């Protein structure tokens, strides 16, 4: 011990520390560091301050730190590719863009969630550190170059999400959602960990580069542990992104969790899990011929996922449940890109994440304005008469729903176009056709929401409910910005697509 301690004080060892730190390249994890500090600070504030004032302070603090994290993510994205912590994590444009999505979506969620809870007289300060921890976990998942780091990131994310689902501890449905989510999530973590263990057993390493060097474009069937491990990891990630047949928890949890938490759960974490899985698959350097079985498997799962999601959504009456099944369907479209398993498809995936996050958060923010006491009127009948009495909110509703169903000129169309385009380019014709037919099916249930909001006449006397809605400034800004972005990306998607294409070159 002494031998270690004494040189640490001397000059030469100070240089050594600097050298180690230089190898560590700690600044590549700057967004995580900033947001972790934010999470810790908000946790302290929550511990020492009274509810109402503490919430406001926490709100401002976390917005500040998330924004700083966003800025540093942008800065990192502009840097060339680099490794940190001896190659355990690496930063490149790909992870940079996804980090921007994570911190940006968390920022938007917090902006809306604050007023959402305040309007209900609920002061839940734990919300702020938990969302920030979740963001840190997601960032590590994407930047990870090692399966262990992926798992660590996933656990930081998942544990935060379990608590977030049940954050409204006075609401029994929220508690129920948390327990369900926790049980299912624990299960899926076990699957993932077992998959990682098998891959480690097969290749002798958990590092993605070492695994790639070991597989080295050879058949994965040389060693049965590798395909078995990949399939178990697929199941583990499948649970997290609610891929059919591992989707059963989704509708209940999405319905039970507080509205803005559902918005958060349905966007960024899915992007994190899918991008981590896609990155693992692609960087494993699988030999194309031998991964056909894997491609077929994921392709079938993609079709099943979107079909089940869309068909189940057709007959729902609760908008949160519709959105739960819709998010399952969207995972199906995303799995098309995962299934293609090349870099071009990864660019389509990134673009879809961007668009899906924006439109989903926008739509949920709109719902948070419309939801009155305990989200009770978030049913189809509950939103009758919206278009007539609040045309502006109705217009936003139209934009988000047409985007979700993929009708031009919205961003949703551009995203789907990119995915199907990539599928056709790589000769996955059947997947493209089934995907686009599914997209047509999905139009039905989004249209049903529009139908009730605009076309069905409300019962007499119920029009007044909309005139009581007060537009909250932060919430309105979020809705406006996301709606504008949906249209803007829909009309000129070029620059984001190009960015995505550039990002995958560095991977």
């Amino acid at each position, binding site marked *: 011990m002494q031998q270690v301690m004494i040189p640490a004080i001397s000059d030469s060892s100070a240089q050594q520390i600097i050298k180690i730190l230089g190898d560590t390249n700690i600044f590549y994890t700057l967004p995580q560091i900033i947001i972790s500090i934010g999470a810790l600070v908000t946790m302290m504030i929550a511990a020492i301050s009274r509810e109402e004032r503490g919430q406001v302070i926490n709100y401002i603090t976390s917005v500040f730190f998330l924004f700083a994290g966003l800025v540093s993510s942008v800065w990192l994205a502009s840097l060339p590719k680099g490794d940190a912590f001896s190659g355990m994590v690496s930063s490149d444009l790909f992870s940079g863009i996804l980090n921007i999505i994570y911190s940006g979506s968390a920022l938007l969620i917090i902006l809306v969630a604050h007023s959402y809870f305040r309007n209900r007289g609920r002061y839940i300060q734990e919300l702020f550190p938990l969302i920030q921890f979740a963001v840190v976990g997601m960032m590590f998942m994407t930047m990870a170059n090692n399966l262990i780091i992926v798992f660590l990131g996933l656990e930081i994310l998942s544990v935060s999400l379990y608590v977030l689902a049940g954050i409204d501890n006075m609401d029994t449905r929220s508690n129920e959602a948390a327990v369900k989510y926790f049980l299912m999530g624990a299960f899926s973590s076990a699957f993932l960990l077992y998959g990682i263990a098998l891959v480690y057993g097969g290749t002798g390493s958990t590092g993605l580069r070492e695994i790639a060097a070991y597989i080295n474009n050879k058949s994965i069937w040389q060693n049965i542990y590798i395909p078995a491990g990949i399939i178990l990891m697929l199941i583990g990630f499948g649970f997290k992104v609610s891929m059919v047949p591992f989707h059963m928890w989704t509708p209940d949890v999405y319905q039970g969790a507080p509205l803005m938490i559902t918005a958060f759960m349905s966007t960024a974490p899915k992007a994190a899990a899918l991008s981590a899985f896609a990155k693992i698959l692609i960087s494993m350097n699988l030999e194309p011929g031998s991964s056909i079985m894997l491609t077929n498997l994921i392709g079938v799962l993609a079709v099943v996922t979107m079909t089940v999601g869309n068909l189940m959504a057709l007959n729902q009456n609760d908008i949160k449940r519709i959105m739960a099944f819709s998010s399952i369907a969207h995972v199906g479209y995303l799995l098309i890109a995962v299934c293609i398993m090349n870099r071009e498809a990864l660019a389509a995936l990134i673009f879809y994440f961007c668009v899906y996050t924006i439109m989903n958060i926008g739509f949920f923010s709109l719902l948070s304005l419309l939801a009155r006491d305990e989200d009770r009127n978030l049913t189809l009948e509950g939103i009758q008469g919206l278009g007539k009495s609040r045309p502006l909110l109705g217009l936003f509703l139209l934009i988000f729903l047409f985007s979700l169903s993929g009708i031009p000129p919205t961003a949703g169309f551009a995203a789907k176009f990119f995915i199907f385009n990539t599928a056709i380019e790589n000769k996955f014709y059947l997947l*493209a056709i089934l995907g686009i037919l599914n997209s047509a099916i999905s139009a039905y249930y989004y249209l049903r929401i529009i139908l009730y909001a605009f076309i069905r006449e409300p019962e007499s006397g119920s029009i007044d409910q909309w005139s009581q809605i007060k537009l909250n400034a932060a919430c309105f800004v979020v809705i406006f910005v996301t709606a504008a972005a949906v249209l803007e990306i829909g009309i000129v998607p070029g620059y984001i697509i190009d960015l995505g294409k550039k990002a995958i070159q560095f991977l």
Partner: protein
Amino acid sequence: MFGDLPILSIITFLPVAGIVILLFIDSKKNSLINTVATATGFVTFILSVPLFFAYQENTGGYQFVEKYKWLESFGISFHVGMDGISLLLVLLTTMLSLIAIISSYTAITSRYKEYMITLLLLQVGMTGVFLAMDLFLFYIFWEIILIPMYLLIGVWGGKERVYASIKFFLYTLTGSTMMLIAIIYMAYMVKAQTGTISFDFIDIFKLKIDPSIQVILFLAFALGFAIKVPLFPFHTWLPDAHTEAPTAGSVILAGVLLKMGTYGFLRFNIPLFPDATVQLAPYMMWLSIIGIIYGALMAMIQPDVKKLVAYSSVSHLGFVMLGIFALNEEGLTGGILQMINHGISTGMLFLLVGMIYERTHTRMIEDYGGIAKAVPVFATFMMIASLSSIGLPGMNGFIGEILIMTGAFLSRPVYGILAASGVILAAVYMLWMYQRVMFGPMKHAKNSNLKDLNFREVAILIPLVALIMWIGVYPQALTVKYQKSVKDLMQLKSSRISSTADSIKN
């Protein structure tokens, strides 16, 4: 004439300016909304009229072409141009949109501002479809139309509007999805053959496509277009949508939207997949003939005037399709002319039905009878529209139908003979309806107090009557504009057939 002015973009996107202005107007100021919407429609129409004279019919081809970069990495550009066929359809669009706006002053009572915005958005999509020279752009405009049309039927429609609007939306959306796959497929085919991906018409026209793949692509496109036309048996959405849509919606739907389908066949299916076209033309013609006779028979037994006119559209569009797939110059010329004619005369019929509906709130034939005495001006206009729809010589419908039948006859006599029966049936259902509504004793006493057409209503009908007479007497004025385009189309088709045959031989 227009110099470097991007006239086509202006015509396409001018309604957007109107929409933006409308967004900032208080929704209670109906007269201001009227003014802005009408002015937008009027200026767009006035700007589009000079195109008719500026278009060089001797040169032919695409004129006023504009091309801007858009999504370069996908080979997609904002590329618009106008040939003789789209020239007439764009003019029809701008005219009928203006008429639709004016006709809605009193017909629409709720959410007036939103209504006008929807109409103007619809105009953007329709104009864009006829002008797009990039397949991706075409698809975007094609899909944009779904949104305003869905809202138009759903929000401002009749009793069964919920059902009709969803049916319309899902039918047309499903139809066009396969088209998107085919479009992307062809873009990558361009990449395989030339090295760069492109969605541009001009590049896709140069493709060499294997005949067996042509058939698949033909069908993928045809599904979307046939639903829009609507070709039998894809017509079932049309009577519902027409009946439930507000008057202006029906006018636009019959006048312009259905033409998008036939235009699609002309613009894409025939020149792009010539082998498949020749191979499948008999089937298309048989479906057209079934549509002609089926539509006419269905029209005959309708108790609802609007539904009758809707089914007559199925019949008339069957004629258009028959002419197009006769694949000779007579048939194509007649088919294109009939597209315009149908827009004018059926548009006028829907307007008239809407006008009388505003007064009586019924469209059932049995609720009328003998009203010619009460509303003589209305009866006169109705007579003109009906006769034009039947195809009386001296009116516009005659020229189109005779050309189509000549074309069909040249293709195979039995087609011409069967199609001619459709003309007779048309006279039966139209005149029978006219007789039951207008003549005979006044069946319902309250109808004797009906107010006749007012000045505004007459004013929007007069231009249509003028067009009916003008085209009837002097159809060359229109046909000369697109004669070159038809010749080009025929030539393109035959040259591509031989070139694919050559390439297969090699």
